[in-house]
């Protein structure tokens, strides 16, 4: 078992954490992840709550640096399909798909498998950034076009 920073007792019932272990070699915090720009904390999962926000993204067990599944809370098809499309546009991504495990729960799983040139987490982060850029471009063009249309309408009626 990887060492946990919290001394809390684990409940007696089997949780999803105890499910058959991944076939990937056991890694503490993973040297492969050193390449990542993002700092990652080792230790137990959702015990720590930040000041205002609850952690809404986590990596599901059984993931490796290039093949990972992520779970988003309080998200659905709105973000899932859009994010999947953008991530698939990344040439370093071999596979990307999303699913909603059960419609009664607001959880969205997204699986990303990448080639060796990048990691799954990096692809996810890039996907989110690209989606943000896309929104900027659309908003800009939309407002410009809308102003142009209103002006044209005003000039016509004058």
């Amino acid at each position, binding site marked *: 078992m*990887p060492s946990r920073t919290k001394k809390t007792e684990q409940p007696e019932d089997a949780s*999803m*954490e*105890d499910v058959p*272990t*991944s076939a990937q070699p056991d890694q503490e*915090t*993973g040297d492969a*992840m050193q390449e990542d720009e*993002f*700092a*990652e*904390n*080792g230790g137990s*999962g*959702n015990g*720590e709550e*930040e000041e205002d*926000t609850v*952690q*809404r*993204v*986590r*990596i*599901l*067990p059984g993931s490796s640096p290039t093949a990972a599944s992520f779970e*988003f809370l309080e998200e659905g*098809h*709105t*973000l899932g*399909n*859009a994010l*999947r*499309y*953008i991530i*698939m*546009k*990344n*040439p370093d991504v071999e596979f990307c798909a999303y699913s909603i495990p059960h419609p009664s729960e607001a959880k969205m799983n997204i699986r990303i498998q990448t080639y060796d040139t990048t990691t799954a*987490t990096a692809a*996810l*982060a890039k996907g*989110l*950034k*690209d*989606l*943000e850029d*896309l*929104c*900027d*471009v*659309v*908003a800009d*063009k*939309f*407002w410009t*076009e*809308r102003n142009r*249309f*209103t002006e044209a309408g005003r000039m016509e009626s004058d």
Partner: protein
Amino acid sequence: MAPSSGRVPEPESRKTVGINKETVSNTVSTDFPDNYPDGDESWDKDWFAQNLKIEFHQNDDYEAQFSLIGVDASIANAFRRILIAEIPTLAVETVFIQNNTSVVQDEVLSHRLGLIPFTGGKEGIRDWMKWWHKPVEGADQYSTTYDHNTVQLKLQVECTHNKDAAPDEKDPTKLYHNAHVYAKDIVYEPAGAQEQYFSGDNIIRPTNPDILIAKMRPGQVIDLEMHMHKGIGADHSKFSPVATASYRLMPVIKILKPILGDDAKKFQECFMPGTIKLEKVTKQHVKANKEYAGHEGEVMAAVDNPLYDTVSREVLRHPEFEGKVKLGRKRDHFIFSIESTGQWESDELFLESIKTLKTKSQKLQTQVQNMVYTYSG
């Protein structure tokens, strides 16, 4: 980043969804890297900005129609879903009934009041009003109610006999006073700092004052107070800022072989008015397409504006047009129609939808950075 010049746009055949007599073909988008040997389909912000086109067709206050060209269905759908479900609006949430002797039951009346769309000062509603949260178990019911998160409204109507009515009068609106209770009878009561934001032209009022809430007869009274809060459509559809927001794909009509004479007239009638125009065959037509040779001066059918077509596929039902026409839709051309209920203007709504998607991705980027690695044992 790959240079944006030298990149070839997707060929028309790949961008068209085929509409056949009983099937629809080529529906899935395939614009991903390594799917095709020609052209690079990876994400490029500048290439996207170059290709993106927006064309407005109509921009009234509460109804807008525009075309979004160059995005994928998943993105357009995300905008549509956010428009319906995730843009905050004010709506009646709690109804305090002091007296209701009308035939409309309390809960039915409350439900109807919740569905009435309201409008008011934009700055107040969007920037100043905050969210209301239910008080913690055990705390006072009104401990979380403040002027910056609650709007108070009153509805007090009593139905009485009209002594001045004609003796043989049958119409209840003339026989009685206040027999019909309309949304315009709802009175806004400003509280605290609300006067600064919601006065004059900006008062909180129903968008459609003529909505009929209840009918009464003499002696019946409705006396109630309402509290409005902010909410989103995902919680309850009364909070949805759009009557509805929808999009359709731009139809494509291709005339493969000449359609002349009476056939041309029949062809025009198979489509909505404005889609097909009738022209006379001229030398230019013959030059462009040899099949028109020998038919100069005859009436021919040509595509005018496919925007008006509703893709009823009527044309495919007639054997005389078999093989002469091909129907389809452009996969990346979305004609949005946004009908607002009054709290936002339609164009502002779409912008807000884009902003919401952007905020979502920004917040998740931070979350991904803080993500914790969880390995099973």
